[in-house]
């Protein structure tokens, strides 16, 4: 790729699938593997010696037979006979050791890269993680890191071995008969450079041509399996199956289009070998007649090429691996680069002491205070704007609004997990953006809908909140969120292992488990996203009421009261011993327990006040509340 296209590609923000990763991508990623150079060198030497044994076996055997046909004293052949046997043994043994060394190097590298990835992600900007879906993150730390590590064993090592062995073999042949050496060199270049290049190019083109088809194919298969029942009932299953077959036919067509070049690349190997043998034969026979070449050496230069192409035969696969690893490296590096903290652009969020001119001063005092806050995903228009909000320990706020009004986005912004797009959020008199990311969770904790349930016991999953959670505290927290019966039904109680994707937990149970986890932290401010989704109304209202009341009367910590030592965070409890709780919900009935209700809609605050005030003031609020009540009565 020329420098011009490189810069064009990297300059194009939309360049994604079609664009090749910029130069140096793989080198950067391989550097992150931090491989031990001595071990790599050892692997290369062992690999070269192993394949060298095969070449030497062919060469010495050819010499042995040619010389033997001249019927010399047997003693003349003794070195060759021993050598042949030794090479026969050496190849297998050396190759075994080489494979162990190289795999060890690769595995060490992968561990190093994963640890680095983890450390950088843990220390970097949290905003990098929020937009990543779980599956995507798993793919990058799983398959992609493996693919970067694989390049050592399957890409770089075979290339180094082939190069070293090629140079050695050509040198040996050149000493015996220069034209044969030259022919072998050209043939090796054909098989070891041209063929892999064609293979890699074809693979890349085919991949690009087939990408759309493959994506459609996966989507079609996923949709069919996910919605098998509804599709069958709607009579759409056959149509979707046709779509799946069509997508596969498109992929097949793309593969077909690349097949001639694949065939060419595959044929280059045997062609190169044949040419090397023929060239040695055609130039060597007259040389023997002329006396320029010993007859025994003719056998060596003609027969050695038969064994000399084993290393290059691995290179087309190595080139494909290189390409695959490069793409994986680009994805891993993109993840790493995204975690590098960006300077916060919001002018008001720079310093608490000296607010920028025209910006609202940072509100002083304990708790979370938002002024003129606008939030939204970076690069998209804000979903909420002009929001003022105060959440202090002991106070409870409910945020209500139709779906799609940005309640979750607001929550992420308040928790410091997304930078505000305007206005400011201050925690204890300091802009949230100015807090060290690691300190924020000790003051404000948000329950996120897609938070992770770890593949460990229920208790350990709760201890994620705080390492010293006792069994009694854990059980109390679960009971408080209405998971008492669920806990009682678990085969091993708190010691029950949850599946890695929490298949043993239903959607509602999962959400409440995450809520119990948040309740077990010592953070004085709690932001809770739809705690009662998937619950029946009575239970849902009881849970939300309990959360909101807990703030006011200081009972929020229930079980955690005993653990008031809370030395881990040092944040302590609020003035009246309660927490500040913000609950995002769509049910109005339990909101009598909230100190303030904020109605969101149309990109901002529609109205706010206490539940009673809103009931008195707003007909639509009253109507919605009435309808809920009516529903409950049925």
């Amino acid at each position, binding site marked *: 790729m020329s420098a011009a296209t490189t810069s064009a590609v990297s300059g194009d923000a939309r360049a994604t699938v079609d664009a090749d990763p910029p130069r140096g991508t793989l080198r950067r990623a391989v550097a992150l593997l931090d491989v031990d150079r001595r071990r790599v060198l050892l692997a290369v030497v062992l690999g070269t010696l192993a394949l060298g044994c095969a070449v030497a076996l062919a060469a010495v055997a050819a010499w042995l*037979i040619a010389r033997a046909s001249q019927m010399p004293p047997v003693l003349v052949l003794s070195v060759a006979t021993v050598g042949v046997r030794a090479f026969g043994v050496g190849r297998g*043994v050396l190759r075994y050791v080489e494979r162990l060394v190289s795999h060890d190097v690769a595995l060490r590298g992968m561990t190093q890269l994963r640890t680095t990835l983890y450390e950088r992600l*843990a220390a970097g900007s949290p905003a990098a993680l929020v937009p990543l879906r779980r599956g995507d993150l798993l793919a990058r730390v*799983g398959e992609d890191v493996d693919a970067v590590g694989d390049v050592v064993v399957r890409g770089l090592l075979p290339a180094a071995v082939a190069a070293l062995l090629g140079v050695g073999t050509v040198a040996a042949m050149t000493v015996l008969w220069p034209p044969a050496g030259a022919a072998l060199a050209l043939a090796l270049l054909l098989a070891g450079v041209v063929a892999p290049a064609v293979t890699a190019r074809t693979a890349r083109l085919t991949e690009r041509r087939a990408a759309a088809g493959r994506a459609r194919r996966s989507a079609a298969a996923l949709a069919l399996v996910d919605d098998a029942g509804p599709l*069958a009932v709607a009579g759409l299953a056959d149509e979707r199956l046709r779509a799946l077959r069509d997508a596969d036919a498109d992929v097949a067509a793309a593969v077909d289009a690349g097949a001639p070049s694949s065939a060419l690349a595959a044929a280059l190997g045997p062609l190169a070998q044949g040419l090397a043998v023929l060239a040695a034969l055609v130039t060597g026979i007259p040389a023997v007649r002329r006396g320029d070449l010993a*007859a025994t050496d003719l056998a060596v230069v003609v027969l050695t090429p038969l064994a000399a192409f084993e290393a290059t035969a691995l290179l087309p696969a190595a080139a494909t691996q290189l390409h695959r690893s490069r793409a994986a490296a680009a994805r891993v590096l993109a993840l790493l680069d995204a975690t590098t903290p960006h300077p916060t652009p919001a002018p008001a969020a720079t310093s608490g002491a000296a607010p920028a001119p025209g910006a609202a001063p940072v509100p002083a005092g304990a708790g979370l205070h938002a002024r003129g806050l606008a939030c939204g995903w970076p690069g998209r228009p804000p979903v909420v704007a002009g929001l003022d909000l105060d959440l202090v320990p002991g106070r409870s706020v409910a945020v209500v609004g139709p*779906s799609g009004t940005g309640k979750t986005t607001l929550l992420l912004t308040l928790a410091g997990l997304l930078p505000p797009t305007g206005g400011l959020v201050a925690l204890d008199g300091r802009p949230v953006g100015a807090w060290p990311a690691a300190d924020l*969770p000790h003051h404000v904790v948000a329950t996120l809908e897609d938070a992770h349930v770890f*593949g460990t016991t229920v208790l350990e999953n709760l201890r994620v909140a705080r390492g010293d959670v006792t069994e009694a505290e854990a059980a109390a927290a679960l009971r408080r969120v209405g998971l008492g019966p669920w806990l009682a039904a678990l085969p091993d109680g708190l010691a029950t292992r949850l599946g890695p994707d929490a298949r043993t937990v239903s959607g509602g149970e999962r959400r409440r488990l995450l809520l119990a986890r948040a309740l077990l932290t010592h953070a004085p401010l709690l932001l809770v996203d739809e705690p009662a989704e998937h619950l029946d109304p009575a239970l849902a209202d009881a849970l939300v009421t309990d959360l909101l009341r807990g703030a006011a009367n200081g009972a929020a910590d229930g079980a955690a009261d005993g653990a008031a030592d809370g030395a881990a965070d040092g944040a302590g409890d609020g003035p009246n011993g309660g927490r500040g709780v913000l609950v995002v919900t769509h049910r109005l009935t339990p909101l009598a327990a909230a100190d303030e209700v904020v109605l969101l809609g149309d990109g901002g605050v529609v109205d706010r006040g206490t539940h009673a005030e809103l009931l008195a003031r707003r007909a639509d609020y009253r109507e919605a509340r009435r309808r809920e009540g009516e529903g409950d009565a049925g």
Partner: protein
Amino acid sequence: MKPLDPRLLRHARAARAYLALTVATGVLTAGLVVAQALLLARALGGAVQDGLDLAAVGDEVVALAAVVLARVLVVGVQERFAHRAATRAVAELRAGVVERAVALGPRWLAAGRGPELVTLATRGLDALEPYFVRYLPQLVLAATVTPAALLVVLGLDRVSAAVVVGTLPLVPVFMVLVGRLTEGRSARGLRGMQTLAAQTLDLLAGLPTLRALGRERGPAARVRELGDAHRRATMGTLRIAFLSGMVLELLTTLSVALVAVGIGLRLVGGHLPLVTGLAVLVLAPEVYAPLRQVGAQFHASTDGVAAAEAAFAVLETPLPPRGTHPAPDLARTALRLHGVAVRQPTGALAPEGLDLEVRPGRVVALVGTSGSGKTTAVEVLLGLLRPDAGAARLVAVDGTGPALDLADVDPATLWSQVSWLPQRPVLEPGTVAALVGGDAPVRERAAALTGLDAVVAALPDGWGHRVGAGGTGLSVGQRQRVALTRALVSPAPLVVLDEPTAHLDAHGEEVVLRTVETLRASGRAVVLVAHRASLAAVADDVVVVRAAAATEMEADRPAAPAPAGTPRAATVAAGRSDAPVPEVVR
């Protein structure tokens, strides 16, 4: 899986022609390998021993060049068609697997098979490509080149043939021995490795959560520990796994070396012509080469082979017998469930002892705690799964004609009369107008009722707005309104709404209530799966769906299906009318 599983040829027709081609190129290759060795030996032998010049061996050199060209062609042709055949065969298997899974229905998929099946149908089966492109040709070569080269060696030199024949059986013997020796160990190692890898990934996947809770610092050391443990476990397995490769290479190179030394010593004694010796020397490695390649390529295609095994298992799962009786007109037929119980993958029965009746012009609401089997009950009602106990029947409303077991009904004829709005509406790509269906006036009227008119008015292209697969381009609430409008427009006599108010606020709920009223007024039978009491209030009959826990169920599991009509107090009269308690159905 056997080296070449006949099931592969049965399930993937593209594989048959390809196998034929591969056998043809394999036979050709065998001939060319032998020809190349003999020609090379004659040309070289003549030059080395008899000092012949190029003209004297010209025929051999020209023929050798022709053989080289022919081999190049054969390799090219094989490769040209290998990828195509692989893609087609995999596509056949994929479509077959997905089709079978859909036919097996939600019950079969529910047992945790869904995600597995998707992985199998996408990435899993793609791993078969190396099997077709690399492994299969080598397997054929092992069946053509190896015996051909061996036979020629036997014809040329009995002693060398004896060495080859003596070592050749050692290859499989040692492979089996090493395999047996390592089997248990590597299986254990593999499990350990998978666990460690899963733990590492779990930790990384949970990082956003750990960060949100301020607990991200500690686990970095754990990631390294797990990585190191994974490496040690993997190396332990590899040390043994690579042994088989080493034995294979050792045997093949060593026996070639022994052949060479043997030939050399007999040449010195003058017992063997040089041309023969050279031919045997060139042919001996060719005997082993395909075997070695088969071993190496099999390693690379094990994932694909495992995927193929899984695919065969799916393809050979017997389909439940499908009813053939055409469904009666649901506008004049009631659907009845009697004592229906369905065993969930967890072992619990959900629902259990369910009685309900769905009649034209009536609204039935299914209520119950989450996990009690409301959606499962709907699937029984729609004939998507057979109950483990109890019966699902169709009975004419006017009492004429016999009751028809749902299992005997051709599901397609039933489904064509059903409009089902599942929890996650299925929206095929197309314009909003096409999604909703019906002609413009009907559509507009329905949209006014569901509030879709406001949504459409706000869309840039109005009714012509294109919706992507899965409803992309619309918000969740908008999708729900589209699906509701569709249910309203559809003339289907049975409408099933599964939690239609989920993710809707109070106003959205009002829309659903209006929709249900309209459906009832038009004489449709409506089944509602209701979470919110307000929704259940609109129903004529409210049926509480209950589950029986796995432990309870073990105690009182009925030996035979519960007799029809066994009174089970699961039907609660509610709403404004007298809920019929289903009478005994014969």
